[in-house]
C-alpha cells in the first residue's frame, strides 16, 4: 500500500488517510461575479502535475498539506497548513 507521511504521526499506509482535494484558495466570494464564482466552484485543475492537496490522518484527525505528483503518485513533501516555509 502506498505510504504517506503525516507531519505529526509519521509514515503510514494510505488507508489511514482521507483525501481532501486540491488546496484551493478562494478569494473574497463577494468580489467575484457570478460566472467567475461558478467557475471557481466547479472547475478543477484537472491535468496531472504536482499539486498541493489536503490530506487527513484519520486516527489522529490531523489535516495537512501534501505536495503530490498526480501523474506518478509520488508525494514530494508534506507539512501542516501554513507551515510550508518552516520545513
Amino acid at each position, binding site marked *: *500500500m*502506498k505510504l504517506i507521511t503525516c507531519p505529526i504521526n509519521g509514515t503510514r*499506509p*494510505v*488507508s489511514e488517510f*482521507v*483525501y481532501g482535494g*486540491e488546496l484551493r484558495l478562494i478569494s473574497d466570494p463577494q468580489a467575484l461575479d457570478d*460566472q467567475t464564482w*461558478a*467557475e471557481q466552484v*466547479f*472547475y*478543477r485543475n*484537472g*491535468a*496531472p502535475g504536482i*499539486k498541493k*492537496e489536503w490530506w487527513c490522518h484519520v486516527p489522529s484527525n490531523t489535516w495537512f498539506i501534501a505536495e503530490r505528483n*498526480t*501523474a*506518478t*503518485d509520488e508525494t514530494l513533501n508534506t507539512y501542516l497548513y501554513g507551515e510550508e516555509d518552516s520545513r
Partner: protein
Amino acid sequence: MPFRLLKFALSKEHPEPRMFQSRDRLKSSYDAVIIGGGGHGLAAAYYLSRDYDMSNIAVIEKGYIGSGNTGRNTTIIRSNYLTPEGVKFYDESVRLWQDLSQDFDLNLFYSTRGHFTLAHTDSALRTMRWRAEVNKHFGIDSEVVSPDDIQSACPPMNLACGGHAPVLGALYHAPGSIARHDAVAWGYGRGADQRGVEIHQQTEVLGITVQSGRVTGVDTNRGHVSTPKVLCAVAGFTPRILDMVGLRSPLYIHPLQALVSEPMKPWLDPIIVSGSLHVYVSQTARGELVMGASLDPYELHSTRSTFDFAEGLAAHMLELFPFLSHVKIVRQWAGLADMTPDFAPIMGKTPIEGFYLDSGWGTWGFKATPVAGKTMAHTVACDRNHDLIQEFSLSRFKDYQLVGEKGAASVGH
C-alpha cells in the same frame, strides 16, 4: 458449426483482409481530426463517414486502438439511469448495441444477461424504486424485485451477506448486457477505415492551434495537420487536451480498478452489482469472473494497481459468494475515469469554435460508446449539439444546471 467457418478450412491463404490500414504519414489537412482511438473516437469516425459522408478524417491515437478505457472496463451495458436525459441517451445506446454485431459483421459477444443492483439498506431500495419508475416512464425494462427473485436468478448467492449487510431487494434491469470490449473498437475502426477514415496509432497530440477562437489545426509528434474541427474523445486524458486549448472543466481523474479470475464453468448468468459492498461482477464467455468496485479515493493519472483494492474486493465478493474461496484471481488492472460533479457526461460544442468534447465518462463510458459516437458525429458534422446531448454541455456547470444523475449517488457502472 456455422457455415461461415468453412471458408477458413477451404482456403489456402488466410481469407481475411486487414481491418485497419497502417499509414506512413499524416496528410497535411483533414476535414476533422478525432483525438483518441478508443471506442468513442472510432465510433464518431464511423458515423461521420457512414452517415454524414465525411471521410477525410484522421483518428489520432497515442497508443493503439482501444488501449484506453475501451480495453480496461468491465464491459457492462445498461440503460437504467436516473434522469430522463440519462435514460433516453443510454436507451438509444442499448438499441444501437443490440444490432452492432450484425452491422459490423463482427461478433461482439453482445450477451444479454440481466442486471441486478442489490440494495442492502432501505435508502438504497428507495433509490432503486426511483430509478425503476423513471425507467419505466421511458419504456425501459426496469423494476424493483424481492430477495426471492434475486435468489432464483442466482441460486448460490448468499443474500445474508455474512450477516453484515443482508440484501433487501434489487433493481432488476433485464436488458443489462456484457460485450467483448476490444472488438467494439475493432468493429468501429474497421468500419471507419473501410470508408476512408485514417487511423493513426502511436501518434501523439502535442498541441492544438487556435486562432481567434477557432480551431485551425493539431500538432502531433508526426507533424502538424490543419483542420477546422477537432473532436476530443480521450476520457482520462481530457484535462491535458483542454489545457492545450486553454479551456477549464470540472473533470477530475480517478483510477478505476478491476480484477479477473481464472476461468471456471459458467455458474453466474446475471450481472450483479452491489453499491454498499462496492462490488460488481459478471462471468465472461470464457468463464472468467470480471469484477470491479468503486473508484480509487483520490486523484491520480496512473493505471497502477493496488493490492488493497484486490483485498477489499475479494473480501466483499466472498460476503456475497462465499463459495468462491478457492477461486484464484489472475490479473488486475486499472483505467482512468474522468468524473464530473453530477455523474453525467460533458459533450458537445465548447466556447472554442470547431472544438468538440466527448468526455466526462467516469465509470459509464463503455455502455455509451455507440450513442456517443452517433451524437458526436451529428454534432461535429452539423456544428450543432444533437438533441440527446443538449443537457450535457460544458456550460451547464457555470449555469448551475447540473444533470441530476448524482441525485441518487448509489451506484455507477
